[in-house]
């Protein structure tokens, strides 16, 4: 493992970096986690995509470090972290997802968080904690579904569609989607709302 990790830190060209990250991710070893997260900040989209896939495969074991090592100064890196957390879907990420969905300045980060908020593995939380978490996710998605940026509203609809699997919040989501269908000024967003309708079986 040490050697695989060192190969990443020593890579001198984008191609070398990509190969080193591929080898490291293929080891599927928890010791690789910090290095894979660091790759998000190297401005190498190919390598970052491999690192994301590797971390998703490692799953829940990567979540604490993903949460701790979010890069507050590099929104590109932050978007990769949020996408990874969203895909692993561990509900321990909820507070981070809520914060960035509502307040991050980078739309790419907010969109990734919005999608993730609908999709967490809620059953891993005990009652009533799960209830509170679901309601917070709902409130955040309802809030950002009024954003001025169409792509944020689009992502909010994707999040709401996923969240509508939960019976307790279905009615609130249905009401919001109807409102968006009637009022949203972007055809693309209204089309996504309609798709959400169909997918939810409303």
């Amino acid at each position, binding site marked *: 493992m040490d050697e695989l990790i060192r190969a990443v830190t020593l890579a001198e060209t984008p191609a070398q970096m990509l190969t080193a990250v591929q080898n490291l991710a293929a080891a599927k070893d928890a010791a690789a986690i910090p290095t894979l997260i660091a790759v998000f900040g190297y401005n190498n*989209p190919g390598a970052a995509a491999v690192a994301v896939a590797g971390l998703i495969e490692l799953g829940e074991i990567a979540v604490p470090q993903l949460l701790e090592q979010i890069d507050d100064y590099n929104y590109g890196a932050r*978007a990769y972290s949020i996408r990874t957390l969203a895909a692993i879907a561990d509900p321990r990420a909820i507070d981070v997802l809520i914060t960035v969905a509502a307040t991050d300045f980078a*739309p*790419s980060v907010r*969109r*990734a968080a*919005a*999608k993730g908020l609908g999709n967490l593995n809620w059953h891993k939380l005990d009652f009533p904690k799960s209830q509170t978490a679901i309601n917070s996710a709902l409130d955040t998605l309802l809030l950002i579904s009024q954003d001025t940026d*169409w*792509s944020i509203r*689009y*992502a909010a609809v*994707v999040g709401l569609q996923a969240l509508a699997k939960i019976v307790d919040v279905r009615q609130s989501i249905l009401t919001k989607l109807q409102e968006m*269908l009637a009022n949203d000024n972007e*055809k*693309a967003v*209204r*089309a*996504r709302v*309609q*798709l959400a*309708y*169909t997918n939810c079986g409303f």
Partner: protein
Amino acid sequence: MIEPSAEEYSVENGTQLTPEIAIANLQSPDLSLRYYAAWWLGKFRISQPEVVDALIAALEDEADKTELGGYPLRRNAARSLGKLGNTKAVPALIKCLECSDFYVREAAVQSLEMLRAPTAIPALIKLLDGGVSQAVQVPGRPHLAQPYEAVLEALGAIGATEAISLIQPFLKHPVPRVQCSAARAMYQLTQDTSYGDLLVKMLEAGDLKLRRVVLGDLGAIGYLAAANAIAQSKAENSFKLIALKGLLEHQLPDKFDDVGVADEAIRVMKLMDSLL
């Protein structure tokens, strides 16, 4: 576009305006207030008739002039008039196509495109005079003799099929971005997929800056066959999402209610979802 767009102003950093103050500021002795007001009225789509009239008047401004002979206020007025959607501005914008300031001409072309003004076609075609051989860099300036990209795009968007034979040679212009604009216009005017495919090829071959331009072009023409190439291109997700949004909107009828969404549109949305 070569000159940084006025859109990059941060709204928060500017003076807090109201429509009344902005209209009054267009006559302010402080030229910077006039310049800002002209931008602000467009940005916030303040489309009342007196705004349109005041901005049309600003297209003839002589007070605000740069050392190089540019007309900053005219540029902003021309840009805003495109956003306000009032075709009353068309004749005055057509007149701007003869302005000595390249950026005024460019802004006017873009606004005439936004206003979909068919009466502008002859004047737009005139900017292509001399063809590719005259479409060269102006010595010492960061732009070509005319705003060719904007002109080609406008002719395509307005549907100027009479310009096809004049546009086609620009596919071979040495500047790749001009080639893109020509391909985009040719596709719009002929619906021939070879022009769409040409853009897809440029998406794969170009550097990051060109890829962003091509993504914009593919979105603007709604070239559905490019959907996967867009999703997989090496560019930021925000640019890909905007391009796919263009494709999606071309798939949707003008007024769609709950008749359901077509399969092609669903395919595009699935790609968009994957880029969130």
